[in-house]
């Protein structure tokens, strides 16, 4: 039988290597901007306005229209062919927007089409942020509680719970880390859908872990004479097919959405894509090895080697 769990130091190393750049990006970003990644207007409040023009435009020219109207804190970027512009400014109301649209049309002609507009008041942005933090904490707590409850009959339910939670934190770090890097490089902004993706990743991560733990729970009484690491290893190998097959299916769906789906939810899908991969990895290569390490008081699987 292939001794999967004994190689745990390598898995922990790989996780560290993957998490570290993201963590550094988050730290850098927090120092530079005060936040681990850029937040969308869902959380900060403000307006985002997407306009398409008949011909490519210079962002600076469009920006001037806004500065002249007294909105000095306006950022303009062009996307795609350069004829579509994204404008970010403070939250504006309808009257202000109508006036701005007139100014834009005077400058660029009347062939301007509004593709998207969103405005979020600063107060509600703050409220949404608080609720988002609450949602993540509530989800993590509820799932931990549920795990401990589901595994209350095993020898150390607390250890199962904590191992699963560590795997969950691993996935959160991987996902937010990658997002932070993308935020620095491509200007990705975390919106309400990012939160949704994060919570989904959390629940799928736990789901994968539950399947393996469930098998350990079943195998433990069957192979009473075997050391725990062997039982865990056996359970892991038995569920490996399922983990990979399920993962593959989810990735088919995500990849197809990523390749062929609309641009508006690309970030959402990408976050889930990475999160799902991380979730499968962490349940096999983090949650179970950590549980074994705890049960055998041997973090890196080195004691065993000396004995053998």
């Amino acid at each position, binding site marked *: 039988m292939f001794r999967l769990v004994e190689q745990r130091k390598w898995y922990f190393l790989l996780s560290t290597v993957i998490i570290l750049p993201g963590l550094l990006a988050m730290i850098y970003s927090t120092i530079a901007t005060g936040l681990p990644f850029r937040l969308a207007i*869902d959380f900060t409040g403000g307006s985002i306005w*997407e306009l398409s023009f008949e011909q490519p435009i210079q962002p600076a020219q469009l920006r001037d229209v806004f500065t002249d109207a007294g909105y000095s804190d306006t950022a303009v970027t062009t996307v795609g062919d350069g004829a579509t512009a994204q404008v970010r400014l403070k939250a504006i109301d*309808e009257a202000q*927007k*109508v006036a701005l*649209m007139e100014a834009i049309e005077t400058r660029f002609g009347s062939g301007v*089409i*509004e*593709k*998207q*507009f*969103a*405005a*979020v*008041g600063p107060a*509600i942005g703050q*409220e*949404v942020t608080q*609720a988002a933090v609450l*949602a993540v904490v*509530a*989800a993590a707590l*509820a*799932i931990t509680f*549920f795990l401990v409850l*589901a595994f209350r009959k095993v020898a150390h339910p607390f250890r199962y719970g904590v191992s699963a939670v560590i795997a969950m934190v691993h996935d959160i770090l991987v996902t937010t880390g990658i997002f932070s890097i993308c935020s620095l490089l491509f200007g990705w902004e975390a919106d*309400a*859908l990012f*939160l*949704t993706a994060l*919570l*989904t990743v959390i*629940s*799928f991560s*736990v*789901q*994968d872990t*539950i399947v393996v733990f*469930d*098998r350990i729970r*079943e195998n433990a009484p069957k192979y009473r004479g075997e050391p725990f690491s062997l039982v865990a290893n056996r359970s892991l190998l038995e569920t490996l097919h*399922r983990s990979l*097959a*399920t993962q593959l*299916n*989810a990735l*088919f*769906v*995500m*990849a*197809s*959405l990523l*390749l*062929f*789906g*609309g641009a*508006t*939810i690309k970030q*959402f899908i990408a976050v*889930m894509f990475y999160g799902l991969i991380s979730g499968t990895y962490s349940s096999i290569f983090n949650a179970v090895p950590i549980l074994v390490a705890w049960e055998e008081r041997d973090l890196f699987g080195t004691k065993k080697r000396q004995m053998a």
Partner: protein
Amino acid sequence: MRSRNSIVLAFIVVLALVTLWIDLPIEHPRWAEQALVWQQPPEYRDLKIKQGLDLLGGTQILLEAKPAPGQAVTARDLEAARVIVERRVNGLGVTEPLVQLQGENRIIVELPGINNPDQAVQTLKSTGQLEFVEIGPSSGSEYPNIKQGVYVRTTNFAHVPDPAALGKLEHPYPEVVFKTIMTGAQLQDAGIGLDQYGVPFIDFTLKQPDGAKIFGDYTAQHIDGILAIVLDNVVLSAPVIRSAIPDGRGVIEGRFTRDEAESLAVQMRYGALPVPLEVVNRRTIGATLGADSVRRSVTAGLIGLVTVLLFMVVYYRLPGAMAAIALLIYASLNLALYKLIPVTLTLPGITGFLLSTGMAVDANILIFERMKEELRWGRSLRLAVETGFSRAWTSIFDSNLSTLITCLILILFGRTFGAQPVLGFAVNLAIGVMISMFTAMTVTRTFMRTVFDSAASEGLREKHWLLGI
């Protein structure tokens, strides 16, 4: 055992056919729509997919009650405000708008495919359209049914109201458009006073010089005529002009209670909304972007789904093929539920559904892997199938429950802030997870029992390639 299985199989076949029929984009008979669709008022029941704003294009506005300091917002105030907003939305002439209470102090308004969202938003949050409307002479009146609380069309706001927006309001003269003499813009102030017997009346002042002049001229020429005070097309009061009012100060007498008089004065001053509303959040999505999204996500969804089906058949062979059929039934069931509940489809909602198909096959994968193990240990086919299902159930249930917990949290979050994308995703994922437990357990198991119990299954145990061992 065998006959029970046949009954379940028959039930599944009927269910599949019925849901497929519901799913088809055809004209469904009226009786079916009335009988099958829940929640909606009867005239709105139909078997069409409701598309969200991100697919259709349009504007979403989140209004928040901003009470004056010391004023509390009660559920009744908010409901009253919602009804008024709904009536105003109706006046905009948008097809299938949505006006819903959201959380404790918010109203969400969705206006699909609206042309001039900026103007619409201004109309919605305005405090109300107060008008002084000519009804005609009071003696032998042509319109005896004009009284407090009835709906009237006026020259300023002459649109024909939607029956749903009217609600319980009477609309006695749907054909008549009454003449607006003056709007609330000319009103300076309104308050209440008590006469010598302690009966309350309303005391109002008009703006100088225009308001007072228009009113003065009009009242001088129409003594004994009825001049209704109308707010958002609803008659507040229909007093008779007793004398000319030249100085811009007038009173309205009636058999008011003190509360009625006070509320009338407040409505004249601040408009119909029992509590001021403020736009806290708004989104507009262009129609072209929406149409493009629909096309792309449907393509992407189909490609994803077909890949999953192929994978199942190639990897798990005969059981995989059965799971694939179960998955198709699953998809059909989901789509039918979206139409029946009804669920508004958004782009993240479609993602939620697609993700849940992953969960649906996951349950089958768990079962099949278990089954293969049992077969390798030399179990009989029947026993392997039954053990596979019963042993995998705890894993399936536990893991699905953790997803449902997350969905619940997301739904609560989405509902409070009108975050339709979040809501759409979580609702569809939750529905999918629940349906998947039924299709993966009951439907696939029934198929497998049917095939493996039949006479033709002799020797199937040895055909390892068919079982994917």
